[in-house]
Structures are given as structure tokens and as C-alpha cells.
């Protein structure tokens, strides 16, 4: 499915970026040749490369640098009216990292973030798969059910989160009123550490299931029906058909949606920030909300600490991505 841009492409593409650096030194002709073969591909990607370099590359580098300093609200350079105050923060080496990594708070947040991610992704995936398999059958009202089940995804996330906050309200929320009607005493949904954790996970699952469901439904529909018919002829039971046709058929889609949803959940800021503000206390604070809190909620604002947490979060995600890529390689997929 790929148009080669020139005869030398296969070789050059195989060598990737590393090859280019080396060849410019050894054989000056190579760069010119590569340029004439690939110049339009490079021109086409140039806008993105430039924009990413400026608005992501630069802040990223700066973030890494800040994490090596003691920058906070008081010592960063700023302009108040006509007065410019110069920055006075200084380089402190890896101190922020040793501080963060030896701080029990970091470990606590990391553990809860992992628990939160694993719970959310696995429950979301299972529910999405169950609903997708049901919707993949032919029956009356299928389109209407599908529409209704997608609704949570269609509503902007922060609106849904406020809706849930409204339902979860301890004294006046609908959930507790309903429980009260059934004679069950009010549940402190967002006021008790354990319940708050259950609540944030429930809301995130509610938000995430529609995407899973639609993606997996697409995957299911791309599995040829003949496979099932043939298996049925051969006497395979429902479980065997699920195990040997559905599961392999869904592998590509599943791995993609699990990757995406793991990354999204790990970084899921709005649900926690808007539903509980990390509370009660700091019981539902995940890594990203804690990093945000350091820089924008707590006083004095700790920019260096926040940047350090940011780098650590990215490191965790990179490890995850590498492990993921390795497991895909084993399955023989490109990514």
C-alpha cells in the first residue's frame, strides 16, 4: 500500500534516521540524492515537524530543564505591569528527582494511578466487549440501542462529570435519594476515600465504554461470517468459536484500543479534578492531578516539582509503550 518515492527508498527507509547522519559525513553525494528523491515527502511533513519542534520540543526541553532547577512562583522571571523581574532560580541537579522518588507520596500516587488505570481499562474493555458482541447480532431495535449506548461519549467530558457530581451529591444527590427510598442509608459517594475511588472509577468507565464498544463492534463486523459458519459445521461450540475466531479476529483492534485507553486513563485529568479535586484529602489524586496541583493549586507554586513529576510520568508511559511494542512485535505486527 505504499508508493515508493524512488529506487533507493527501500534501502534508505531501512536505515532510518540513523543512517542519514552517518552518510552525510562519509559520502556527501548521498544527502543530495536522498534530497532529490524524498524532497516532496519531506516538504509535506515539514509543517508538522516544525510546529511540533517549536510548540512541543521546546517546552519539553524546557520542562526537563526546569525539573533540574528549584524554580517556583517566587523566583521565575515575570513581568508585572512595566516592571520586569529577572529569574533567580538555579540549577540543582537531580535533587528534585531524588526528592520525588524517595517521597512516599510519589509511591502512593503511582500505586493508585496504576490501580485506577488497570481497573478502568479492564472493566471498560470487558463491558465494551460484552455490549459489542450483543450488538453484533441481528435483532429489533439494534440501531436505537446503539445510539443510546453511545450517548455518554457524545457529551463533552466535563459536562458529564458535572452531571455525575450532581447525582453523587451526599445530601441532595439522586443516587442517595433513591437509596433512601429503598431504606438504605446514604452513601458518602465523594466524601469517603474508598467510595470516592469507586465513584471516580465508575464515572470513568461510564465515559469510556462507548468508545470501546464502537471500536470492538467495528472489529467484530470485519470478521467474515463464513468463519463462524464453517466452525459451526465442524461442530465447534459457542465458547470454542469465541476463543478461536472472535479473540484472534479482534486482536489488532483490541490491542490498539487498550493502548489508547490505557494512555488516556493514566493521564485522565478532568474526571478526577472536577469530580473530587483529588479528595477527600488526597485519596483520589493521580499523578497528573498531583503535578497540576503542585504548579497551579498549592502555594507557593512549585514549578520545578511539577516538571519533575511530569518527566517521571512520561518515563512511566514510555516504559509502558516499549513493553507494548515488544509484545506486538512478538505477534508479528508492525507496531
Amino acid at each position: 500500500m505504499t508508493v515508493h518515492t524512488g529506487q533507493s527508498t527501500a534501502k534508505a527507509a531501512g536505515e532510518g534516521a540513523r543512517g542519514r547522519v552517518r552518510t552525510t559525513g562519509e559520502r556527501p553525494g548521498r544527502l543530495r540524492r536522498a534530497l532529490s528523491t524524498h524532497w516532496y515527502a519531506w516538504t509535506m511533513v515539514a509543517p508538522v515537524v516544525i510546529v511540533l519542534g517549536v510548540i512541543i520540543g521546546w517546552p519539553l526541553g524546557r520542562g526537563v530543564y526546569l525539573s533540574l532547577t528549584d524554580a517556583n512562583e517566587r523566583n521565575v522571571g515575570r513581568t508585572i505591569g512595566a516592571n520586569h523581574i529577572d529569574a533567580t532560580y538555579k540549577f540543582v541537579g537531580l535533587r528534585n528527582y531524588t526528592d520525588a522518588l524517595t517521597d512516599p507520596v510519589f509511591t502512593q500516587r503511582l500505586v493508585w494511578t496504576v490501580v485506577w488505570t488497570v481497573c478502568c481499562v479492564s472493566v471498560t474493555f470487558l463491558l465494551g466487549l460484552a455490549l459489542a458482541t450483543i450488538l453484533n447480532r441481528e435483532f429489533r431495535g439494534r440501531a436505537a440501542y446503539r445510539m443510546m449506548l453511545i450517548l455518554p461519549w457524545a457529551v463533552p467530558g466535563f459536562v458529564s462529570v458535572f452531571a455525575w457530581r450532581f447525582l453523587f451529591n451526599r445530601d441532595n444527590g439522586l443516587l442517595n435519594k433513591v437509596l433512601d427510598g429503598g431504606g438504605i442509608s446514604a452513601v458518602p459517594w465523594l466524601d469517603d476515600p474508598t467510595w470516592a475511588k469507586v465513584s471516580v472509577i465508575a464515572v470513568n468507565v461510564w465515559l469510556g465504554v462507548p468508545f470501546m464498544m464502537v471500536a470492538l463492534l467495528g472489529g467484530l463486523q470485519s470478521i467474515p461470517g463464513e468463519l463462524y459458519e464453517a466452525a459451526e459445521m465442524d461442530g465447534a461450540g459457542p465458547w470454542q468459536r469465541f476463543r478461536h475466531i472472535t479473540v484472534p479476529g479482534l486482536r489488532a483492534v483490541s490491542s490498539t484500543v487498550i493502548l489508547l485507553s490505557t494512555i488516556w486513563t493514566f493521564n485522565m485529568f478532568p474526571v478526577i479534578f472536577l469530580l473530587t479535586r483529588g479528595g477527600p484529602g488526597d485519596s483520589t489524586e493521580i499523578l497528573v492531578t498531583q503535578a497540576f496541583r503542585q504548579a497551579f493549586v498549592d502555594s507557593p507554586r512549585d514549578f520545578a516539582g511539577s516538571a519533575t513529576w511530569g518527566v517521571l510520568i512520561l518515563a512511566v508511559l514510555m516504559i509502558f509503550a516499549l513493553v507494548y511494542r515488544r509484545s506486538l512485535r512478538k505477534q508479528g505486527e508492525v507496531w
Partner: protein
Amino acid sequence: MASVPESAPGAAAPGGRPRGKRSPLASLGLHATLIGASVIAVFPVLWVLLTSLKPAKYAVTTDFFKDTTLDNYRYLVDRTSFFTWFGNSALIAGVTTVLGVLIAATTGYAVSRFKFPGMRPLMWTLLITQMFPMAILIVPLYNLMGQLGLLNQPVGLIITYLTIAVPFCAWMMKGFFDGIPVEIDESGRVDGLNPFGTFWRLILPLAKPGLAVTAFYSFITAWGEVAYSSAFMVGDENMTLAGGLQTFVTQYTANWGPMTAASVLIAVPAAVFFLFAQKHLVAGMTAGATKG
């Protein structure tokens, strides 16, 4: 969930015939499960809609209908800056979308069609930037915007949102371009078009639905963004919807009436568009990732 293996045969092949073999009991179970799930999916949204139509003093009662009124909407229009926030959000999300799509379109095409040195690293960069926690960029961007005097300015937030929109748009569009047969490019090349001409005259018109979906989704993403807008925009007249809505529900007081009315006004247009576009959405997102 016990129904997973049982229903797995995908009894109805795509476009297939009803098998007509399902027992009444299985049918009942199927509909019961779906009705239960649908209620859970729809109810919170519906409840907000119903609450917005009740006088504020009944907001927290369990009555579905009580003195139906538009007072909450009137309050929202007359007494709050809702439309200012709405305008800010629309402006910021709109400009972000247009810029994001413009910048990313050719890249999506190039990574879909060509093999070139640097393509792999680029694909990885696009993937990895999508998993960037905002925590790592927010402080440097905040300081940068502060130095440039762009805090509290729509421009600042637009630049910030481009960090999300550009990689995302490129990724999505690659998925859509992958779905257009290469033969079309080839025939264009045979007719003497260069790659830019092929892209502009042949592929772009064919990819219009995909571009629309990409644009729509990046609009919605910017529309619903919370972290950057909470940190960068302060003051009533500069807030976006996500920030403005937070002012209704603080730690101690909750003004549920106008809050629900605002929620409805924010959600309904988005949801209507969304339900039309959703089918293509998933196709683009997963195709971009699986057909690397």
C-alpha cells in the same frame, strides 16, 4: 457478562440474515441487558436535561417533572457570562481546529503513501506526543505564555491546544488516507501530476469526509479541555466553558439550576453532531494505529 461466549458466534453475519433461532428466553435476556445498559448510559444525561427544566429550588428533588420552566436558561442568559464563555470556547476551538487540520493534512498523506527516511521516527513522535501527560508541558507553556504576555489570551490557549491537535489530526488523517486506494494516486501520476498535485486534486476531495471527522473531533477535544484552560484563563470574561461551569459548583455551594441549563446548552449541539459522525471516528482512530 455471562452472555459473552454465548453471543460470540456473531450469529448475524454482517449484512446477514436473521437466524430466527433465538429462544424467547434468550431474546428476553438480550433486551433486558440492553435496556439496563441503555438506562445507565442515558439516565445521567437525561436527568440533567430534566433538572434544567425545573425551578432551581426543586433541582435536588426526585420529581421528574415539576413546574416545568425555562427560568434556569433565562438566569443563565441574564445573570451570568455564559455566552462570553461560549464565544471564547467556540473561537479557541474553531481556530485550533482549522490550524490543526491545515498543518497536519499533508503529513497524514505523506506518512500514508511514502516511505522516506525519518518516517518511522516521525510516526513514533506522533504516537508518543499523544501520550504526553499535560503535566509535562503545562509548566513550561505557562511560563512561556507568561513571558509573551499571552496568558488570559485566546491566542495562548490556541497555541497550547495545537500541541494536542496537530499530532492527533496527522494520526487520524493517515488512517483516512490509508482507506483511499493507491491506484488513484498511481493514475494521477501516470497523467503527469506531481505528488502535490495528486494530493491536492485527487486525494483531498476524496478525503473530505475524513477531514470533516478529524476536524470535528479536534474541535470537540478543544471544546472539552479542562486542565490548560483552568490554569491559563482567569477572570470571568476570559474563561472557556469548562472553566465557567466550574464557577457554578464550588466546594461549598452548588448552583445546580443554571449549571444543568448550561450543561444542556453545551452538550446538545455537540451530541447531535457527534452521533452523526461517530461511525467514521472510530474507523480513523483505529486504522491510524493498526495499519502502521
